[in-house]
C-alpha cells in the first residue's frame, strides 16, 4: 500500500501521510478522506485506528490522509498569535491544498473523534470543498428525555432526594451563565443554535454526514435520536445518518468495537460516494 510523507503548511511544519489507492482502484471523483487528531493522540489515531482505516479505505479506492495539527504528534508548535480555531482551519485548508496539488483531490471527507469531531465540524462549515463528514462523539445538548434517563440512571445508583431536587430545580431555573445543566458533562460547546445553523448550511450544500455517538459520552448524550431532538429545526434531507452505540467506550478500545466502526465507516463511504461505472 503506497504511502507518501508530506511536509506542508506554515513553514512546512506540519507532517502528514497519504495512503494511495492502487492505480486500478483510483477514481478522481471519489473524495479524499482526512483524519483529524483525536485529542492529543498523534495522527495514527486511537489504538492506531487511523492508520488501519486509511489503508482499508485506500483498498476501496479512497485517497486517505492522516496528519498532525500544529503542536501535536510530529508537527511543529506554532509561535504566532493565532487562535486555536483559526489555526485549525488554516492548517486543514493547507492539507486540502496539498492533496489537490499532489494528488488531484478536489473534494474531501473530514473525520474525527471527540475534539477531532468538533474540528471536522468547523472545517466542513468553513470550506466548501468538504463533501462529507464523519463525526464520532461530536456535539450534544441535553433534552427532557436525556435528563429523565439520566435521573433514572442516577436514581438507580443512589436514591437521594436532594440530588433529585437539585436536578429538577436546574430544569426549571437553568443557570443563564451556562448553556447546560449543573452536573452534566460539557466540553466547551458552542451554543446549540450556532451548531444548528452550521448543520443547516451543510445540509443545504448537500454535505453527507455520519454522526456516531457512544456510551462513552453518556454525560451529555444518552439515547438513540437525541441528535434529531437537538436539531429539530434543521432540514437534513437525505444527508444525515445517525448511529448510537451505548455499549461502546469513547475511544473504541476493544478490537471488535473498532472493527464494527471501521466496517460502518467504510460501508457509509462506499454508499455515499460510489465508484463511477
Amino acid at each position, binding site marked *: 500500500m503506497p504511502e507518501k510523507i508530506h511536509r506542508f503548511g506554515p513553514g512546512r511544519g506540519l507532517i502528514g501521510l497519504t495512503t494511495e489507492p492502487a492505480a486500478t482502484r483510483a477514481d478522481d471523483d471519489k473524495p479524499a478522506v482526512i483524519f483529524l487528531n483525536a485529542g492529543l*493522540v498523534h495522527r495514527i489515531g486511537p489504538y492506531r485506528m487511523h492508520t488501519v482505516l486509511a489503508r482499508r479505505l485506500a483498498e476501496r479506492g479512497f485517497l486517505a490522509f492522516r496528519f498532525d495539527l500544529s503542536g501535536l504528534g510530529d508537527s511543529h508548535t506554532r509561535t504566532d498569535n493565532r487562535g486555536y480555531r483559526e489555526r485549525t482551519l488554516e492548517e486543514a485548508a493547507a492539507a486540502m491544498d496539498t492533496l489537490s496539488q499532489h494528488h488531484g483531490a478536489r473534494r474531501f471527507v473530514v473525520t474525527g473523534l471527540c475534539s477531532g469531531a468538533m474540528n471536522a465540524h468547523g472545517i466542513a462549515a468553513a470550506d466548501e470543498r468538504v463533501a462529507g463528514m464523519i463525526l464520532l462523539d461530536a456535539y450534544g445538548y441535553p433534552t427532557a428525555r436525556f435528563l429523565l434517563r439520566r435521573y433514572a440512571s442516577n436514581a438507580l445508583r443512589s436514591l437521594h432526594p436532594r440530588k433529585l431536587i437539585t436536578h429538577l430545580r436546574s430544569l426549571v431555573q437553568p443557570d443563564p451563565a451556562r448553556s447546560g445543566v449543573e452536573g452534566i458533562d460539557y466540553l466547551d460547546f458552542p451554543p446549540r443554535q450556532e451548531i444548528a445553523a452550521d448543520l443547516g448550511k451543510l445540509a443545504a450544500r448537500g454535505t453527507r454526514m455520519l454522526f456516531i455517538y457512544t456510551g*462513552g459520552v453518556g454525560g451529555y448524550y444518552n439515547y438513540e435520536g437525541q441528535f434529531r431532538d437537538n436539531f429539530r429545526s434543521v432540514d437534513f434531507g437525505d444527508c444525515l445518518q445517525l448511529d448510537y452505540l451505548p455499549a461502546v467506550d469513547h475511544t473504541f478500545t476493544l478490537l471488535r468495537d473498532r472493527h464494527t466502526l471501521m466496517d460502518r465507516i467504510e460501508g457509509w463511504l462506499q454508499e455515499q460516494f460510489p465508484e463511477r461505472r
Partner: protein
Amino acid sequence: MQNSPFYFGESGSALFGIHSRPASTLDPSWAVLVCNPLGQEAIRAHRTLSLLASRLAAAGVHVLRFDYLGTGDSDGDLGFGDPGRCLEDIRIAMRELRDITGARHTAVLGLRLGATLAASITDLDADRMILWDPVIDGADYVHRLTRLHERMLHDTERYAVPRLDAADSTSRECLGFACPGEYRKALGGFRLLGLDALPAPEVVLFSSSPSDHYADLAAHLGSLGPGFLHRRLPDEMHWDSLQHIEDALQPGTVLAEAERLFTGR
C-alpha cells in the same frame, strides 16, 4: 534543528522514521536511536519522545525515532507489536542511524519495553544505553497488562455497562491492541535481572517515581560493571494505572536529564 520523516528498510516491510538533525552538521559527536514502548504506551509517549528528539537535536545530537513493523506509520499490522520482529527492527534502525549520520558515538534511548528489547541485544555495539522506566520482567509485564485489560472491561467510568461479552478478549488483546499468545510467550522471555553483562559500556537507568520499583535492577546492573549510572526522576508516569491508560505522558524532567547526559550542561 530539522525533523525529516522518511521510510527505510525493505520494500513491503518499510519502517517509518523521523530523523531530528542538529542545525550544525559539523563534527557530529553523538547519534541516538530512540526505541519506542509497545502498544498503548507508545501512543502515550509519542509527543514526549518527539519533544525529546527536538531538544537533543537542538543541543547538537542526531536522533532517529522509528515505528516497529506493524505499528505506528510503518508497514503492516502487528497489533501490539511482535517482540521478535522488534529486535530485528532495532538492528535495522541502528544501521540506518549510523549510515545517515556518520556520528562518532551512538547511543540507544529506550522507553519501557523499548528499553528492555534494546538491552537484550548483545551486538548493537552502542556506546551508551539509556533505559527509561524499562520493563524489568516480561512475564510480569504481560500479567499486569492482562489484569489491567480485565479491569478495564469492568470499568464503569469507561463502559456504561461492564463488557462481560468481551471477557474472551483478555487472552487476545492488551488495552486496545491485538496481543496473541505467541507475543505473550515471547515477551515472557525478557528479564533484565537475567542480564550477565552491561548491554553497552555506559548504561544509564532513568527511573520515574516511585523509584524503589527499580532498586533490584539498579543493584543488579551496578554489579555488572563500573559503567552503570542510576538517575532517579521525580516524575510519576502512572504506567499501571487504569485511569491513565489514555493520558499523554508528561515529559517532566527527562528532557533536561537526557540533554545533560550528552552535553554535560
